[in-house]
């Protein structure tokens, strides 16, 4: 039976798109986040495609590209992240997914986007790229810092190991202490409760490198992503030296886990020590673990390891597609440094 792919008419077919997303990616409340993610993104509205079954026009899959301004070296370019890739269980025969994956390349081939990238979180998500012969550009790993062990021990063994749990907590605290003392005394870390202002855009522009790829962190983007997200609440810490913004961390609390979404700034090593130390101090008595996500080769990897974070698992592969022989394509071939946090891999 013939399958075909076509763009989604965002205004009139939103409900069909929501139906296929909610059925096949049930862990998110797609209706609540739809306007925010698909329409209100400051980098532009999403482009989406359906794959349909020919005889009935039944929607059997969908995928989208969410525009994302990226720093490619010292140039800011409009790129796109592929996401919300959903295929009906009965149609996971690879062909429908290939149609969607190829469709997602169209805005790049048409010159509307400098490149697009996908971040499959599991092996099955790589199947289309394997078939197309496209290699991943980098890997993003999950790092974790255990803050305390008593909650887990109590869940597993009851209160019989209370003494051991206290000893475990003490051990972890002592182990962390030397790294916490590495922070600079002239960096002031504060909670940031308001919206993101122009100083964040200036900070973003100040942090560029000739060989780095990362997402832009303009005030408009940060406000949209962290202040307007209808599904999640975030907290922000800023790092300042003599009043000037030099970095920030964004994190969220889910159960016993503190997830660092973003850690960014100038003089990143010093800034990161100060921000991570502040997060540790705030949550070491109330939460079990701090987790964070970093691309391989990220300049923060060594900071995390010095802070006693440990590499726990692979979180995603990053696979980019650029128009053949375009300037960006040549840049990608030169093995640039993908400076990705969690914020770059989640749509």
């Amino acid at each position: 039976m013939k399958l075909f792919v076509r763009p989604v008419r965002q205004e009139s077919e939103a409900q069909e798109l929501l139906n296929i997303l909610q059925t096949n990616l049930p862990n998110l409340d797609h209706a609540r986040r739809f306007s925010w993610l698909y329409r209100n993104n400051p980098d532009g509205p999403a482009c989406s495609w359906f794959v349909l079954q020919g005889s009935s026009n039944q929607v059997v899959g969908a995928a989208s590209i969410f525009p994302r301004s990226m720093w490619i070296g010292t140039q800011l370019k409009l790129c796109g992240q592929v996401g919300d890739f959903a295929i009906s269980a009965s149609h996971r025969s690879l062909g429908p997914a290939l149609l969607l994956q190829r469709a997602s390349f169209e805005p790049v081939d048409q010159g509307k986007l400098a490149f697009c990238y996908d971040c499959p979180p599991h092996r099955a998500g790589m199947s289309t790229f394997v078939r197309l012969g496209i290699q991943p550009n980098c890997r993003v790993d999950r790092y974790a810092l255990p803050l305390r062990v008593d909650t887990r021990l109590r869940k597993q063994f009851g209160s019989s190991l209370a003494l051991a749990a206290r000893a475990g907590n003490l051990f972890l605290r002592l182990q962390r202490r030397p790294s916490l003392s590495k922070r600079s005394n002239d960096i002031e870390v504060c909670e940031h409760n308001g919206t993101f202002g122009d100083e964040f855009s200036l900070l973003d522009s100040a942090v560029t490198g000739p060989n780095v790829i990362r997402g832009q962190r303009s005030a408009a983007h940060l406000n949209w992503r962290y202040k307007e997200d209808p599904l999640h609440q975030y907290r922000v810490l800023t790092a300042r030296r003599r009043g000037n913004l030099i970095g920030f961390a964004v994190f969220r609390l889910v159960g016993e886990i503190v997830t660092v979404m973003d850690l960014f700034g100038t003089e990143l090593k010093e800034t990161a020590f100060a921000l991570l130390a502040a997060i540790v101090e705030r949550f070491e008595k109330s939460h079990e673990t701090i987790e964070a996500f970093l691309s391989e080769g990220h300049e923060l990897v060594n900071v995390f390891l010095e802070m006693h974070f440990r590499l726990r698992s692979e979180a995603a592969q990053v696979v980019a597609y650029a128009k053949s022989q375009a300037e960006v394509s040549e840049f990608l071939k030169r093995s640039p440094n993908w400076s990705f946090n969690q914020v770059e891999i989640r749509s």
Partner: protein
Amino acid sequence: MPTDGSSMNERIRAFVLEKFPLARKRSVKDSDELLESGIVDSLGVLDLVHFLEQQFSITVVDDELIPENFRTVDHIVAFVERRTTSSS
């Protein structure tokens, strides 16, 4: 896995049972759903394609990666029969 003397059906079924743990666990029959049940995912389809191309000297193109060709062992057998017939 049965060797060359086995029927196409037996060879494909043996591959499915060997390669996909859920197929063994559920003792799949030739008419059982492989895709919808999650026994074979999209990476599994890639493995199946590689196996069919090697074993039956066919080339599977993207347009043929449709559910009708991979839904059950029976569907896979019918697909390979069509392909080997059309290319002979």
